[in-house]
């Protein structure tokens, strides 16, 4: 085939199909499972990667892979061709490790059957009143969750943040879930009243008719870009370029919006493209200090694990 794509995004398959129909280039889509498994596979392949393109949620892992020389820098020309919105521009990494194709963020997922309208949390701090009934992902297992944790420490202060979380996530049963789906499940069955979750996941639940809402904390939240990276060893650079062009084109973006799974509810970052109806885009973003986040990654993950998981 002309391209091998490793991904963990719901729309990657349809996009590849549309790309194939348009250009006649064949794409093998490899989706081992969630982001974790995809990364595991890439890690095992090590210095002999079998993919041309990897397309995932999360910027930190992309940076990491680029630093390990698993990925090569995205050619500057590729960025120039895209009409990024401001939000989009802010997501373009200095290292050119990846090309952002969209984004999402972390929000508070609330079960409306369990939480009356007047008791809705408004900020991370409000979660304290739901202590013991808050579902959250383990940052050790989920890239987006770490991004949230780092952002949370950035907005709330590390020590205050730790104190707040310690008071909030008092139930280890829900504090270290392994995926967004599990957070959803905990909230939907009512085992937990609220959850800390990726907002696109929440909106897909809402669209499916589940009784939940997404609440954005007043402190602001950190964005989680979807990144597309290029293998350092690719032999198909031409095809890769064409694929990037297609993804960032209106045609490609239309495919990415045409579905009802989680990832289809992303926030477009290209001018003229609008998110799926019902998807909140008016969000106060905070910009993550990548340096601080990666400097403390080990330490904070370890703290989380020891405090809430083990």
């Amino acid at each position, binding site marked *: 085939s002309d391209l091998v794509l490793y991904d963990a995004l719901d729309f990657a398959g349809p996009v590849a199909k549309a790309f194939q129909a348009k250009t006649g280039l064949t794409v093998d889509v490899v989706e081992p499972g969630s982001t974790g498994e995809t990364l595991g596979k890439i*890690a095992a392949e090590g210095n002999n990667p079998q993919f041309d393109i990897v397309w995932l949620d999360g910027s930190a892992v992309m940076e990491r892979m680029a630093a390990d020389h698993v990925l090569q820098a995205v050619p500057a020309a590729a960025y120039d061709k895209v009409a990024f919105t401001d939000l989009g521009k802010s997501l373009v990494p200095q290292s050119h490790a990846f090309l952002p194709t969209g984004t999402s963020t972390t929000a508070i997922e609330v079960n409306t059957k369990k939480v009356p309208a007047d008791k809705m949390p408004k900020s991370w701090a409000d979660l304290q009143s739901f202590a013991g009934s808050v579902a959250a992902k383990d940052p050790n297992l989920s890239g987006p969750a770490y991004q949230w944790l780092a952002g949370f420490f950035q907005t709330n202060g590390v020590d205050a943040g730790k104190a707040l979380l310690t008071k909030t996530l008092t139930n280890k049963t829900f504090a270290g879930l392994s995926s967004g789906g599990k957070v959803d499940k905990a909230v939907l069955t009512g085992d937990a009243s609220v959850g800390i979750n990726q907002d696109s996941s929440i909106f897909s639940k809402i669209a499916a008719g589940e009784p939940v809402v997404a609440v954005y904390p007043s402190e602001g939240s950190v964005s989680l870009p979807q990144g597309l990276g290029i293998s350092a060893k690719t032999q198909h650079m031409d095809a890769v370029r064409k694929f990037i062009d297609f993804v960032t084109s209106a045609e490609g973006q239309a495919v990415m919006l045409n579905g009802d799974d989680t990832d289809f509810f992303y926030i477009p970052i290209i001018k003229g493209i609008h998110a799926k109806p019902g998807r909140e885009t008016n969000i106060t973003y905070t910009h993550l200090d990548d340096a601080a986040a990666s400097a403390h990654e080990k330490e904070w993950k370890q703290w989380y694990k020891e405090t809430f998981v083990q």
Partner: protein
Amino acid sequence: MQHTDVAASARGVGTGRLLQGGRAVLVRCAGPFAIYAVFALLIGLPLALVLVQAVMPGLFAVQDGSNILSFEPLARVFNSAHVASSVLHSLELGMLVACTTTALGGAFAVLVQRCDIPLRTAISTVPWLVFLTPSYLKALAWVLLMSPGGYLAQFGLLPSWLGSSFFGLTGLVFVHTLSLFPLAVFIIGNALAGLGSELEDAARLSGAAPLRIWLRINGPLLAPAIALSFIATFAEVLSDFGLASTIARMSNFGVLTYGIYAAASEYPVDFPAAGAQALVLLGLVLLVVVADRLLRRRADPRLISGRSRPARLYNLGKWHRLAMAAALAVALLALVLPLTAIAARALTQTLGHGLIWSNFTSANVVAALSLNTEANDGLLRSLFYAGLTAVIASALALLLSAQLERASPVLRTAVIGLSLGSVAIPGIVLGFGYILVWNRLPGFRDWPFPHYGNGSLLVMGYVAAALPYCLVVILAAIGQLAPSLTDAARLNGVGTVRRLLAITLPLVLLSVVTAFLLTFIRTVFELPISQMLIPQSGPPAPTLILRLFSHDRDGLASAIALVAMAAAGIGAALVWYPLQRFVKPRRSAGHVHAGSSPIAETGTSP
């Protein structure tokens, strides 16, 4: 193919005596050597590559791989209080479940094979159906059923104390037992089929009561099978991730596999930590295998002899309805309840609204059944891979078992220990091993066949994952054959291959078919290997299902899983029914005595 001579000499002369004469040795050893090489290549090497990183952490680093020896990862793992507690948890859980499962499975096997309970045929399919349900579905089902907001609570059928105590050791043992007991039924049931009634008859005439007969005669004679079932379940529990990531996680009962998954889900994967913890798992299983060998020093008795011994059915008299009720209760808990939960999920729109009328929909089922979808393609692919894997794995296991059967006890123990050990290693570790061998190791990575990234390596991985089970099941059966049966064939000038096909295979056909079906069903739903070795040409069904689950579309996922189960079940039935004719003669012959003695006043009645 003269390797049996070596075996014969090993048997006759004792172990360790090598024949003089270089060329003769070569010729004689070629057969076994080839087979052991396959075993090493399939399981040994991939596992070794992951495990060795526990002491050579830099071996497969993306950059500047180094083979410096370091005990840092091991030290890290052994010094962690958490790892220590999860080892204890794993051990505690494994041992408990191994006991309960073997007990339940053994009782069930006796019930359906030796007792004249009503609905016997129907009840005997229950373990197969339970086995058809992949473990991640069972885990999901129990979460759906038992969680505080789950289905049972919605119907008010769940007392709160039960709900809360369920998420803990009790619940884990309960769910594991119900989902693993088919294994015990297969292993013990196969042994039971070879154990005629003559020895029992002799005991009855000695005035021994039924209980005593089971404790002192049948029990010890079945000991190899019981031990095997115990170890296999133990290993299976150790490697389980489905429950470890749901119920265990929700009840904060950390087990080793979860640690391995945690180490394997980071980027870059913490291979040293995964390897070190996998090493601990392997150690635990080897410990149990060796303990078993030491406890049961004597060679296992040969139950199928050149003289025939028919088996007899017990008449339970007034107890037979009670027995049936017990069997049905097991069926209800292990099969009906979880499947209903899955079906309910497949038939409802949203999880949050629960089981109310307006929430029901057929959309998921319709989507799962519509043709030419990705799910359908994946399912067909999986069925094909599974069929291929089952053929290869059971054939290979038969060859290996025939070889091992006559090998020295030490070698036997070693191979069984390693096989079961590899059962205990989470599939993802084996999957990593495969990638390391076939994508990293010079000399392997450029082989056109099998090739990483294509179906051939996936099938090979499946075979490796299934081989230990096939081996265990078939080896247990071959161990029951009296040596004179194959000896007689040798004297008739029948060569090794034909002997295997015409004598050994038919006599252990039941077990080979069992191994085949076990492999087929497991492979259709096998997850970690599918994920790691997913072919570029298209994904097999389990990864599709899992992706839906992880993206929280469990309604559709449940529907597809149900369709997959039905397909796998039909596939298995298509294999079983034609083959059953060949298994029949001997068994029915054995049952003649039984069938025509409808009023045997015996059995478990006190």
